[in-house]
Protein backbone atom coordinates (compact mmCIF):
# COMPACT_ATOMS: atom_id res chain seq x y z
CA UNK A 1 0.00 0.00 0.00
CA UNK A 2 1.12 3.52 -0.75
CA UNK A 3 0.65 6.43 1.62
CA UNK A 4 -2.34 7.53 -0.46
CA UNK A 5 -3.87 4.04 -0.22
CA UNK A 6 -3.47 4.15 3.54
CA UNK A 7 -5.16 7.53 3.96
CA UNK A 8 -7.99 6.32 1.70
CA UNK A 9 -8.31 3.24 3.89
CA UNK A 10 -8.50 5.30 7.09
CA UNK A 11 -11.15 7.55 5.56
CA UNK A 12 -13.12 4.48 4.47
CA UNK A 13 -12.97 2.97 7.97
CA UNK A 14 -14.09 6.24 9.58
CA UNK A 15 -16.95 6.50 7.07
CA UNK A 16 -18.10 3.05 8.21
CA UNK A 17 -17.97 4.13 11.85
CA UNK A 18 -19.72 7.44 11.31
CA UNK A 19 -21.91 7.71 8.22
CA UNK A 20 -22.44 11.42 8.86
CA UNK A 21 -18.74 12.32 8.88
CA UNK A 22 -17.86 15.09 6.41
CA UNK A 23 -14.53 14.49 4.70
CA UNK A 24 -14.52 17.62 2.54
CA UNK A 25 -11.71 19.99 3.47
CA UNK A 26 -10.06 17.39 5.70
CA UNK A 27 -6.55 18.62 6.49
CA UNK A 28 -4.14 15.64 6.61
CA UNK A 29 -1.87 17.53 8.99
CA UNK A 30 -4.53 18.34 11.57
CA UNK A 31 -5.91 15.98 14.24
CA UNK A 32 -8.78 13.82 12.97
CA UNK A 33 -10.34 14.04 16.44
CA UNK A 34 -11.01 17.78 16.12
CA UNK A 35 -12.00 17.82 12.45
CA UNK A 36 -14.41 14.87 12.53
CA UNK A 37 -15.50 15.01 16.15
CA UNK A 38 -14.04 11.59 16.90
CA UNK A 39 -13.70 10.31 20.46
CA UNK A 40 -11.40 7.70 21.98
CA UNK A 41 -13.98 4.96 21.30
CA UNK A 42 -13.85 5.80 17.58
CA UNK A 43 -10.07 5.36 17.57
CA UNK A 44 -10.54 1.99 19.25
CA UNK A 45 -12.88 1.04 16.39
CA UNK A 46 -10.19 1.99 13.85
CA UNK A 47 -7.62 -0.15 15.68
CA UNK A 48 -10.01 -3.11 15.79
CA UNK A 49 -10.91 -2.80 12.13
CA UNK A 50 -7.23 -2.69 11.08
CA UNK A 51 -6.60 -5.82 13.11
CA UNK A 52 -9.58 -7.58 11.57
CA UNK A 53 -8.67 -6.69 8.00
CA UNK A 54 -4.87 -6.87 8.02
CA UNK A 55 -3.97 -8.63 11.30
CA UNK A 56 -2.09 -5.54 12.46
CA UNK A 57 -1.60 -5.28 16.22
CA UNK A 58 -1.43 -1.69 17.44
CA UNK A 59 -0.50 -1.43 21.13
CA UNK A 60 -2.34 1.14 23.25
CA UNK A 61 0.78 3.28 23.70
CA UNK A 62 0.92 3.77 19.92
CA UNK A 63 -2.64 5.14 19.60
CA UNK A 64 -1.38 8.76 19.50
CA UNK A 65 0.41 7.88 16.23
CA UNK A 66 -3.03 7.69 14.61
CA UNK A 67 -3.83 11.33 15.38
CA UNK A 68 -3.72 12.76 11.83
CA UNK A 69 -4.09 11.22 8.36
CA UNK A 70 -0.41 11.86 7.66
CA UNK A 71 0.73 10.34 10.95
CA UNK A 72 -1.46 7.30 10.22
CA UNK A 73 0.26 6.88 6.87
CA UNK A 74 3.71 7.20 8.42
CA UNK A 75 2.96 4.76 11.21
CA UNK A 76 1.13 2.15 9.13
CA UNK A 77 3.29 2.30 5.97
CA UNK A 78 5.88 -0.29 7.13
CA UNK A 79 3.13 -2.62 8.41
CA UNK A 80 1.12 -2.46 5.18
CA UNK A 81 3.93 -2.33 2.63
CA UNK A 82 3.25 -5.88 1.40
CA UNK A 83 -0.53 -5.57 1.28
Amino acid sequence: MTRADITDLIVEIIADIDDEADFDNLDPEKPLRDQLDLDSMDFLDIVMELRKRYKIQIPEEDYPQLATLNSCATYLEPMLKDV
Partner: protein
Amino acid sequence: MPTHFKYCKDRYDAVVIGSGLGGLTTANRLARCGHRVLLLEHHHRLGGLATWFKRKGHIFDVSLHGFPYGMVKTCKKYWNREIMNSIVQLRDIVFDNPQFSLKTTFDKQDFAALLTNRFGIDPKRIEAFFRRVDTMNFYDDRTMTTRELFEEFFPGRSDVHRLLMEPITYANGSTLEDPAITYGIVFSNFMNRGVFTFQGGTDQLIALMTRELEKNGVTICTGARVDRIETKNGRTTGVNVNGRTIGAPAVVSNSGITNTIYNLVGTDCFTDEFLEQADRIRVNNSSCQVYLGIRPDTSIEMIGDLIFSSRSPVFDSAELLDVNTRSKTFSVYYPKTRPGHDRYTIVASMNSRYEDWSKLDEEHYRLAKVALIDRTLDDLERYVPEIRAKIDWQEAATPRTFNRYTLHTRGTSFGTKFEGLDVSRSIFKQIGGLFHVGSVGIIMSGWLGAINYGVIVANDVDSYLRSIEKV
Protein backbone atom coordinates in the same frame (compact mmCIF):
# COMPACT_ATOMS: atom_id res chain seq x y z
CA MET B 1 -33.86 -18.47 22.77
CA PRO B 2 -31.19 -19.36 25.32
CA THR B 3 -29.78 -22.88 25.00
CA HIS B 4 -29.82 -25.40 27.84
CA PHE B 5 -26.34 -25.82 29.30
CA LYS B 6 -26.26 -29.53 28.46
CA TYR B 7 -26.37 -28.68 24.75
CA CYS B 8 -23.30 -26.41 24.90
CA LYS B 9 -20.23 -27.47 23.02
CA ASP B 10 -17.10 -28.41 24.97
CA ARG B 11 -14.97 -25.68 23.49
CA TYR B 12 -15.32 -22.03 22.42
CA ASP B 13 -12.93 -19.21 21.54
CA ALA B 14 -14.26 -17.10 24.39
CA VAL B 15 -16.53 -17.69 27.37
CA VAL B 16 -18.24 -14.64 28.88
CA ILE B 17 -19.34 -15.06 32.50
CA GLY B 18 -22.33 -12.88 33.29
CA SER B 19 -24.71 -10.91 31.11
CA GLY B 20 -24.66 -7.39 32.47
CA LEU B 21 -24.53 -4.73 29.75
CA GLY B 22 -20.70 -5.02 29.75
CA GLY B 23 -20.76 -8.81 29.29
CA LEU B 24 -23.46 -8.64 26.63
CA THR B 25 -21.51 -6.03 24.68
CA THR B 26 -18.19 -7.89 24.87
CA ALA B 27 -19.93 -11.08 23.70
CA ASN B 28 -21.57 -9.25 20.81
CA ARG B 29 -18.37 -7.54 19.67
CA LEU B 30 -16.34 -10.74 19.82
CA ALA B 31 -18.96 -12.62 17.81
CA ARG B 32 -18.96 -9.83 15.22
CA CYS B 33 -15.19 -10.26 14.98
CA GLY B 34 -15.75 -13.89 14.02
CA HIS B 35 -15.01 -15.62 17.33
CA ARG B 36 -17.10 -18.46 18.72
CA VAL B 37 -18.61 -17.10 21.92
CA LEU B 38 -20.46 -18.72 24.83
CA LEU B 39 -22.34 -16.43 27.22
CA LEU B 40 -23.17 -17.89 30.64
CA GLU B 41 -25.63 -16.30 33.06
CA HIS B 42 -26.58 -17.69 36.48
CA HIS B 43 -30.00 -15.99 36.54
CA HIS B 44 -32.86 -17.04 34.26
CA ARG B 45 -32.79 -13.63 32.61
CA LEU B 46 -30.10 -11.63 30.80
CA GLY B 47 -29.14 -8.05 31.67
CA GLY B 48 -27.57 -8.17 35.13
CA LEU B 49 -28.69 -5.06 36.95
CA ALA B 50 -30.21 -3.76 33.69
CA THR B 51 -33.32 -5.68 34.60
CA TRP B 52 -37.06 -5.54 35.21
CA PHE B 53 -39.75 -7.59 36.85
CA LYS B 54 -43.50 -7.96 36.48
CA ARG B 55 -46.10 -7.73 39.22
CA LYS B 56 -49.89 -7.59 38.84
CA GLY B 57 -49.71 -6.18 35.32
CA HIS B 58 -46.98 -3.66 36.18
CA ILE B 59 -43.49 -3.80 34.73
CA PHE B 60 -40.85 -2.34 37.05
CA ASP B 61 -37.53 -1.14 35.63
CA VAL B 62 -34.73 -1.54 38.14
CA SER B 63 -31.98 0.65 36.67
CA LEU B 64 -33.36 2.40 33.60
CA HIS B 65 -33.56 5.85 35.29
CA GLY B 66 -31.72 7.80 32.57
CA PHE B 67 -28.40 7.88 30.74
CA PRO B 68 -26.37 10.43 28.71
CA TYR B 69 -26.83 11.17 25.01
CA GLY B 70 -23.59 9.30 24.21
CA MET B 71 -25.74 6.15 24.38
CA VAL B 72 -27.14 6.97 20.92
CA LYS B 73 -23.76 6.74 19.19
CA THR B 74 -22.71 3.77 21.30
CA CYS B 75 -25.87 1.76 20.49
CA LYS B 76 -25.59 2.62 16.81
CA LYS B 77 -21.99 1.45 16.58
CA TYR B 78 -21.99 -1.54 18.90
CA TRP B 79 -25.57 -2.82 18.76
CA ASN B 80 -27.97 -1.79 16.01
CA ARG B 81 -30.15 1.01 14.67
CA GLU B 82 -33.37 -0.38 16.08
CA ILE B 83 -31.91 -0.09 19.58
CA MET B 84 -30.51 3.37 18.82
CA ASN B 85 -33.84 4.60 17.46
CA SER B 86 -35.62 3.75 20.72
CA ILE B 87 -33.61 6.26 22.73
CA VAL B 88 -35.66 9.31 23.75
CA GLN B 89 -35.03 12.34 25.95
CA LEU B 90 -36.39 12.85 29.46
CA ARG B 91 -37.04 16.58 29.64
CA ASP B 92 -38.30 17.12 33.15
CA ILE B 93 -35.60 16.69 35.75
CA VAL B 94 -36.74 18.05 39.09
CA PHE B 95 -34.75 19.06 42.19
CA ASP B 96 -36.68 19.58 45.39
CA ASN B 97 -34.84 20.21 48.66
CA PRO B 98 -34.71 22.81 51.46
CA GLN B 99 -32.12 24.85 49.51
CA PHE B 100 -33.91 25.03 46.15
CA SER B 101 -36.75 23.62 44.04
CA LEU B 102 -36.39 23.77 40.28
CA LYS B 103 -36.97 21.96 37.00
CA THR B 104 -34.27 21.52 34.35
CA THR B 105 -33.47 19.65 31.13
CA PHE B 106 -30.10 18.87 32.77
CA ASP B 107 -27.91 20.07 29.93
CA LYS B 108 -25.14 22.65 29.75
CA GLN B 109 -27.24 25.46 28.33
CA ASP B 110 -30.02 25.13 30.88
CA PHE B 111 -27.61 24.61 33.77
CA ALA B 112 -25.59 27.69 32.81
CA ALA B 113 -28.79 29.75 32.74
CA LEU B 114 -29.89 28.38 36.12
CA LEU B 115 -26.52 28.99 37.72
CA THR B 116 -26.54 32.58 36.47
CA ASN B 117 -30.16 33.52 37.12
CA ARG B 118 -31.12 31.44 40.17
CA PHE B 119 -27.78 31.07 41.90
CA GLY B 120 -26.21 34.39 40.90
CA ILE B 121 -22.93 32.92 39.66
CA ASP B 122 -20.75 34.95 37.28
CA PRO B 123 -21.18 33.50 33.74
CA LYS B 124 -17.40 33.59 33.23
CA ARG B 125 -16.94 31.32 36.22
CA ILE B 126 -19.59 28.90 34.93
CA GLU B 127 -17.92 28.83 31.54
CA ALA B 128 -14.54 28.14 33.15
CA PHE B 129 -16.06 25.31 35.20
CA PHE B 130 -17.59 23.66 32.14
CA ARG B 131 -14.34 24.08 30.24
CA ARG B 132 -12.52 22.28 33.06
CA VAL B 133 -14.92 19.32 33.35
CA ASP B 134 -15.32 18.96 29.57
CA THR B 135 -11.60 18.50 29.07
CA MET B 136 -11.07 16.10 31.97
CA ASN B 137 -9.88 12.68 30.97
CA PHE B 138 -8.65 9.44 32.42
CA TYR B 139 -4.98 10.42 32.26
CA ASP B 140 -5.37 13.68 34.19
CA ASP B 141 -4.34 14.40 37.76
CA ARG B 142 -6.18 11.97 40.05
CA THR B 143 -5.32 13.55 43.37
CA MET B 144 -7.85 16.38 43.23
CA THR B 145 -11.19 15.46 44.79
CA THR B 146 -14.61 16.57 43.60
CA ARG B 147 -14.96 18.61 46.81
CA GLU B 148 -11.75 20.49 45.94
CA LEU B 149 -12.99 21.05 42.39
CA PHE B 150 -16.26 22.56 43.67
CA GLU B 151 -14.46 24.69 46.27
CA GLU B 152 -12.14 26.05 43.59
CA PHE B 153 -14.97 27.24 41.37
CA PHE B 154 -17.86 27.82 43.79
CA PRO B 155 -16.30 28.32 47.25
CA GLY B 156 -18.71 27.98 50.17
CA ARG B 157 -21.73 27.50 47.90
CA SER B 158 -23.24 24.34 49.37
CA ASP B 159 -26.37 24.92 47.27
CA VAL B 160 -24.38 24.87 44.02
CA HIS B 161 -22.40 21.83 45.18
CA ARG B 162 -25.70 20.06 45.78
CA LEU B 163 -27.07 20.93 42.33
CA LEU B 164 -23.89 19.61 40.72
CA MET B 165 -23.35 16.53 42.88
CA GLU B 166 -26.64 15.04 44.00
CA PRO B 167 -27.68 13.48 40.65
CA ILE B 168 -24.21 12.04 40.09
CA THR B 169 -24.23 10.43 43.53
CA TYR B 170 -27.43 8.64 42.58
CA ALA B 171 -26.05 7.80 39.15
CA ASN B 172 -22.86 6.08 40.28
CA GLY B 173 -22.54 6.18 44.06
CA SER B 174 -19.62 8.61 44.00
CA THR B 175 -19.03 11.16 46.74
CA LEU B 176 -17.26 14.50 47.18
CA GLU B 177 -14.14 12.58 48.24
CA ASP B 178 -13.74 10.64 44.97
CA PRO B 179 -11.31 11.84 42.26
CA ALA B 180 -12.60 14.95 40.46
CA ILE B 181 -11.99 13.31 37.07
CA THR B 182 -14.58 10.61 37.82
CA TYR B 183 -17.08 13.38 38.49
CA GLY B 184 -16.04 15.49 35.50
CA ILE B 185 -16.21 12.69 32.95
CA VAL B 186 -19.67 11.52 34.01
CA PHE B 187 -21.14 14.99 34.60
CA SER B 188 -19.99 16.37 31.24
CA ASN B 189 -21.41 13.28 29.51
CA PHE B 190 -24.84 14.20 30.89
CA MET B 191 -24.40 17.93 30.27
CA ASN B 192 -23.70 17.28 26.59
CA ARG B 193 -27.40 16.96 25.73
CA GLY B 194 -29.36 16.01 28.84
CA VAL B 195 -30.89 12.78 30.13
CA PHE B 196 -32.18 10.01 27.87
CA THR B 197 -34.07 6.77 28.30
CA PHE B 198 -35.01 3.67 26.37
CA GLN B 199 -38.55 3.74 25.05
CA GLY B 200 -40.06 0.28 25.39
CA GLY B 201 -38.35 -0.29 28.72
CA THR B 202 -35.54 -2.55 29.87
CA ASP B 203 -37.38 -5.73 28.79
CA GLN B 204 -37.54 -4.47 25.22
CA LEU B 205 -33.87 -3.43 25.22
CA ILE B 206 -32.68 -6.80 26.48
CA ALA B 207 -34.97 -8.60 24.01
CA LEU B 208 -33.45 -6.61 21.12
CA MET B 209 -29.92 -7.24 22.39
CA THR B 210 -30.64 -10.98 22.75
CA ARG B 211 -31.89 -11.10 19.17
CA GLU B 212 -28.74 -9.32 17.95
CA LEU B 213 -26.47 -11.71 19.89
CA GLU B 214 -28.24 -14.70 18.40
CA LYS B 215 -28.02 -13.22 14.92
CA ASN B 216 -24.28 -12.91 15.41
CA GLY B 217 -23.96 -16.50 16.55
CA VAL B 218 -23.43 -16.16 20.31
CA THR B 219 -24.49 -19.25 22.26
CA ILE B 220 -26.46 -18.06 25.29
CA CYS B 221 -27.03 -20.16 28.41
CA THR B 222 -29.09 -18.92 31.34
CA GLY B 223 -29.35 -20.70 34.67
CA ALA B 224 -25.65 -21.61 34.33
CA ARG B 225 -23.58 -20.43 37.27
CA VAL B 226 -19.83 -20.65 36.81
CA ASP B 227 -18.16 -22.16 39.89
CA ARG B 228 -14.56 -21.73 38.83
CA ILE B 229 -12.33 -20.19 36.20
CA GLU B 230 -9.72 -22.82 35.32
CA THR B 231 -6.07 -21.95 34.82
CA LYS B 232 -2.92 -23.83 33.91
CA ASN B 233 0.65 -22.52 33.76
CA GLY B 234 -0.42 -18.91 34.12
CA ARG B 235 -3.13 -19.03 31.46
CA THR B 236 -6.84 -19.58 31.58
CA THR B 237 -8.08 -22.81 30.03
CA GLY B 238 -11.82 -22.43 30.51
CA VAL B 239 -14.58 -22.47 33.10
CA ASN B 240 -16.24 -25.05 35.30
CA VAL B 241 -20.00 -25.12 35.66
CA ASN B 242 -21.53 -27.69 37.97
CA GLY B 243 -18.62 -30.11 37.49
CA ARG B 244 -18.46 -29.73 33.72
CA THR B 245 -15.53 -27.96 32.07
CA ILE B 246 -15.95 -25.79 29.00
CA GLY B 247 -12.61 -25.08 27.36
CA ALA B 248 -11.67 -21.68 25.94
CA PRO B 249 -8.42 -19.77 25.42
CA ALA B 250 -10.14 -16.57 26.56
CA VAL B 251 -12.47 -16.05 29.52
CA VAL B 252 -14.17 -12.73 30.17
CA SER B 253 -15.61 -12.27 33.63
CA ASN B 254 -18.53 -9.88 33.92
CA SER B 255 -18.83 -10.97 37.51
CA GLY B 256 -17.66 -8.33 40.00
CA ILE B 257 -13.88 -7.81 40.00
CA THR B 258 -13.53 -8.89 43.64
CA ASN B 259 -15.72 -11.95 43.02
CA THR B 260 -13.61 -12.82 40.00
CA ILE B 261 -10.31 -12.69 41.88
CA TYR B 262 -11.28 -14.20 45.23
CA ASN B 263 -14.03 -16.66 44.32
CA LEU B 264 -13.84 -17.63 40.67
CA VAL B 265 -10.06 -17.82 40.23
CA GLY B 266 -8.67 -18.05 43.77
CA THR B 267 -5.84 -16.08 45.31
CA ASP B 268 -3.09 -18.69 44.72
CA CYS B 269 -3.02 -17.83 41.01
CA PHE B 270 -1.97 -14.18 41.48
CA THR B 271 1.26 -12.44 42.56
CA ASP B 272 1.42 -10.94 46.05
CA GLU B 273 1.79 -7.48 44.55
CA PHE B 274 -1.39 -7.85 42.49
CA LEU B 275 -3.31 -9.20 45.50
CA GLU B 276 -2.20 -6.24 47.61
CA GLN B 277 -3.63 -4.00 44.93
CA ALA B 278 -6.83 -6.07 44.81
CA ASP B 279 -7.17 -5.99 48.62
CA ARG B 280 -7.29 -2.21 48.46
CA ILE B 281 -10.33 -2.17 46.16
CA ARG B 282 -13.31 -0.54 47.84
CA VAL B 283 -16.61 -1.73 46.43
CA ASN B 284 -19.17 1.00 46.05
CA ASN B 285 -22.31 1.20 48.13
CA SER B 286 -25.50 -0.64 47.32
CA SER B 287 -29.07 0.62 47.00
CA CYS B 288 -32.56 0.34 48.36
CA GLN B 289 -35.50 0.67 46.03
CA VAL B 290 -39.24 0.92 46.50
CA TYR B 291 -41.43 -0.08 43.56
CA LEU B 292 -44.92 1.39 43.39
CA GLY B 293 -47.57 0.43 40.85
CA ILE B 294 -50.40 2.88 40.20
CA ARG B 295 -53.86 1.31 39.86
CA PRO B 296 -54.82 0.60 36.22
CA ASP B 297 -57.82 2.98 36.29
CA THR B 298 -55.80 5.81 37.84
CA SER B 299 -53.45 8.32 36.28
CA ILE B 300 -51.05 10.78 37.85
CA GLU B 301 -50.15 14.30 36.81
CA MET B 302 -46.83 15.02 35.09
CA ILE B 303 -44.64 15.64 38.14
CA GLY B 304 -41.28 15.15 36.42
CA ASP B 305 -39.37 12.22 34.91
CA LEU B 306 -36.70 12.15 37.58
CA ILE B 307 -37.16 13.84 40.93
CA PHE B 308 -34.15 14.37 43.16
CA SER B 309 -35.98 14.81 46.41
CA SER B 310 -34.42 15.54 49.78
CA ARG B 311 -35.44 16.94 53.13
CA SER B 312 -31.86 17.07 54.38
CA PRO B 313 -30.79 20.72 54.98
CA VAL B 314 -27.61 20.33 52.89
CA PHE B 315 -26.08 17.71 50.60
CA ASP B 316 -24.19 15.19 52.70
CA SER B 317 -22.84 11.88 51.31
CA ALA B 318 -23.20 10.18 54.71
CA GLU B 319 -26.82 11.29 55.03
CA LEU B 320 -27.59 9.83 51.61
CA LEU B 321 -26.29 6.44 52.73
CA ASP B 322 -28.05 6.33 56.07
CA VAL B 323 -30.88 3.81 56.58
CA ASN B 324 -33.18 6.67 57.50
CA THR B 325 -32.02 8.96 54.69
CA ARG B 326 -34.42 11.72 53.76
CA SER B 327 -32.95 11.83 50.25
CA LYS B 328 -34.11 9.74 47.31
CA THR B 329 -34.66 9.75 43.57
CA PHE B 330 -38.10 9.10 42.17
CA SER B 331 -38.00 7.67 38.64
CA VAL B 332 -41.49 8.19 37.32
CA TYR B 333 -42.54 5.99 34.41
CA TYR B 334 -45.52 7.29 32.46
CA PRO B 335 -47.36 5.31 29.75
CA LYS B 336 -45.00 6.99 27.22
CA THR B 337 -42.21 4.73 28.57
CA ARG B 338 -43.86 1.66 27.08
CA PRO B 339 -46.17 2.71 24.27
CA GLY B 340 -49.17 0.38 24.29
CA HIS B 341 -48.75 -0.50 27.95
CA ASP B 342 -51.01 1.92 29.76
CA ARG B 343 -49.47 1.96 33.22
CA TYR B 344 -47.76 4.35 35.60
CA THR B 345 -45.04 3.10 37.91
CA ILE B 346 -42.75 4.91 40.32
CA VAL B 347 -39.39 3.58 41.45
CA ALA B 348 -37.77 5.28 44.43
CA SER B 349 -34.01 4.74 44.74
CA MET B 350 -31.80 5.40 47.72
CA ASN B 351 -28.12 4.73 48.22
CA SER B 352 -27.55 2.21 50.99
CA ARG B 353 -24.94 0.20 52.89
CA TYR B 354 -25.00 -3.62 52.78
CA GLU B 355 -23.92 -3.79 56.44
CA ASP B 356 -27.05 -1.96 57.58
CA TRP B 357 -29.27 -4.69 56.16
CA SER B 358 -27.21 -7.90 56.18
CA LYS B 359 -27.22 -8.33 59.95
CA LEU B 360 -30.98 -8.15 60.49
CA ASP B 361 -32.86 -11.34 61.36
CA GLU B 362 -35.84 -12.20 59.15
CA GLU B 363 -38.46 -10.49 61.30
CA HIS B 364 -36.48 -7.26 61.70
CA TYR B 365 -35.64 -7.34 58.00
CA ARG B 366 -39.32 -7.58 57.10
CA LEU B 367 -40.23 -4.72 59.45
CA ALA B 368 -37.38 -2.57 58.13
CA LYS B 369 -38.71 -3.02 54.59
CA VAL B 370 -42.21 -2.04 55.67
CA ALA B 371 -40.79 1.11 57.31
CA LEU B 372 -38.77 1.89 54.18
CA ILE B 373 -41.91 1.72 52.02
CA ASP B 374 -43.77 3.87 54.54
CA ARG B 375 -41.12 6.62 54.56
CA THR B 376 -41.06 6.55 50.76
CA LEU B 377 -44.84 6.98 50.53
CA ASP B 378 -44.67 9.89 53.01
CA ASP B 379 -42.08 11.60 50.82
CA LEU B 380 -43.99 10.89 47.62
CA GLU B 381 -47.21 12.30 49.09
CA ARG B 382 -45.76 15.78 48.50
CA TYR B 383 -45.74 15.18 44.73
CA VAL B 384 -48.67 12.78 44.37
CA PRO B 385 -51.39 13.59 46.93
CA GLU B 386 -53.19 10.56 48.36
CA ILE B 387 -50.59 8.26 46.90
CA ARG B 388 -51.56 5.41 49.23
CA ALA B 389 -55.03 5.27 47.66
CA LYS B 390 -53.60 5.31 44.14
CA ILE B 391 -51.29 2.30 44.29
CA ASP B 392 -52.11 -1.38 44.03
CA TRP B 393 -48.55 -2.69 44.38
CA GLN B 394 -45.72 -1.83 46.75
CA GLU B 395 -42.49 -3.71 47.20
CA ALA B 396 -38.99 -2.99 48.49
CA ALA B 397 -35.53 -4.16 47.45
CA THR B 398 -32.51 -3.80 49.70
CA PRO B 399 -28.76 -4.44 49.38
CA ARG B 400 -29.58 -8.07 50.21
CA THR B 401 -31.84 -8.25 47.16
CA PHE B 402 -29.10 -6.80 44.93
CA ASN B 403 -26.63 -9.31 46.34
CA ARG B 404 -28.99 -12.22 45.65
CA TYR B 405 -29.62 -11.37 42.01
CA THR B 406 -26.20 -10.08 40.94
CA LEU B 407 -23.96 -12.05 43.35
CA HIS B 408 -21.99 -8.81 43.74
CA THR B 409 -19.77 -8.41 46.79
CA ARG B 410 -21.86 -6.66 49.46
CA GLY B 411 -24.62 -6.13 46.90
CA THR B 412 -22.80 -3.22 45.29
CA SER B 413 -24.98 -1.56 42.69
CA PHE B 414 -22.25 0.74 41.33
CA GLY B 415 -19.21 -1.55 41.03
CA THR B 416 -16.02 -0.29 42.63
CA LYS B 417 -14.26 2.94 43.47
CA PHE B 418 -11.56 4.31 41.17
CA GLU B 419 -8.79 1.82 42.12
CA GLY B 420 -10.87 -1.10 40.76
CA LEU B 421 -10.25 0.05 37.21
CA ASP B 422 -6.49 -0.57 37.21
CA VAL B 423 -6.98 -4.05 38.66
CA SER B 424 -9.67 -4.85 36.09
CA ARG B 425 -7.45 -3.58 33.26
CA SER B 426 -4.39 -5.54 34.35
CA ILE B 427 -5.82 -8.95 35.32
CA PHE B 428 -4.81 -10.41 31.93
CA LYS B 429 -1.17 -9.66 32.75
CA GLN B 430 -1.53 -12.03 35.71
CA ILE B 431 -3.40 -14.81 33.92
CA GLY B 432 -3.10 -14.98 30.15
CA GLY B 433 -6.48 -14.95 28.43
CA LEU B 434 -8.44 -13.82 31.51
CA PHE B 435 -10.23 -10.48 31.20
CA HIS B 436 -12.67 -8.56 33.34
CA VAL B 437 -15.52 -6.32 32.25
CA GLY B 438 -17.96 -4.61 34.58
CA SER B 439 -18.65 -1.53 36.63
CA VAL B 440 -15.27 -0.43 37.92
CA GLY B 441 -13.63 2.87 38.70
CA ILE B 442 -16.88 4.88 38.72
CA ILE B 443 -16.36 6.02 35.11
CA MET B 444 -17.11 2.53 33.75
CA SER B 445 -20.33 2.46 35.75
CA GLY B 446 -23.87 3.12 34.56
CA TRP B 447 -25.40 1.84 31.33
CA LEU B 448 -23.21 3.89 28.99
CA GLY B 449 -20.02 3.24 30.96
CA ALA B 450 -20.71 -0.50 31.09
CA ILE B 451 -21.39 -0.80 27.35
CA ASN B 452 -18.35 1.26 26.37
CA TYR B 453 -16.16 -0.74 28.72
CA GLY B 454 -17.51 -3.89 27.06
CA VAL B 455 -16.17 -2.57 23.74
CA ILE B 456 -12.77 -1.71 25.23
CA VAL B 457 -12.42 -5.18 26.73
CA ALA B 458 -13.60 -6.87 23.51
CA ASN B 459 -10.70 -5.12 21.77
CA ASP B 460 -8.25 -6.60 24.32
CA VAL B 461 -9.73 -10.07 23.93
CA ASP B 462 -9.74 -9.92 20.13
CA SER B 463 -6.12 -8.80 20.17
CA TYR B 464 -5.21 -11.69 22.48
CA LEU B 465 -7.09 -14.32 20.45
CA ARG B 466 -5.47 -13.15 17.22
CA SER B 467 -2.01 -13.09 18.79
CA ILE B 468 -2.27 -16.73 19.91
CA GLU B 469 -3.68 -17.78 16.53
CA LYS B 470 -0.37 -16.86 14.94
CA VAL B 471 1.73 -19.05 17.22
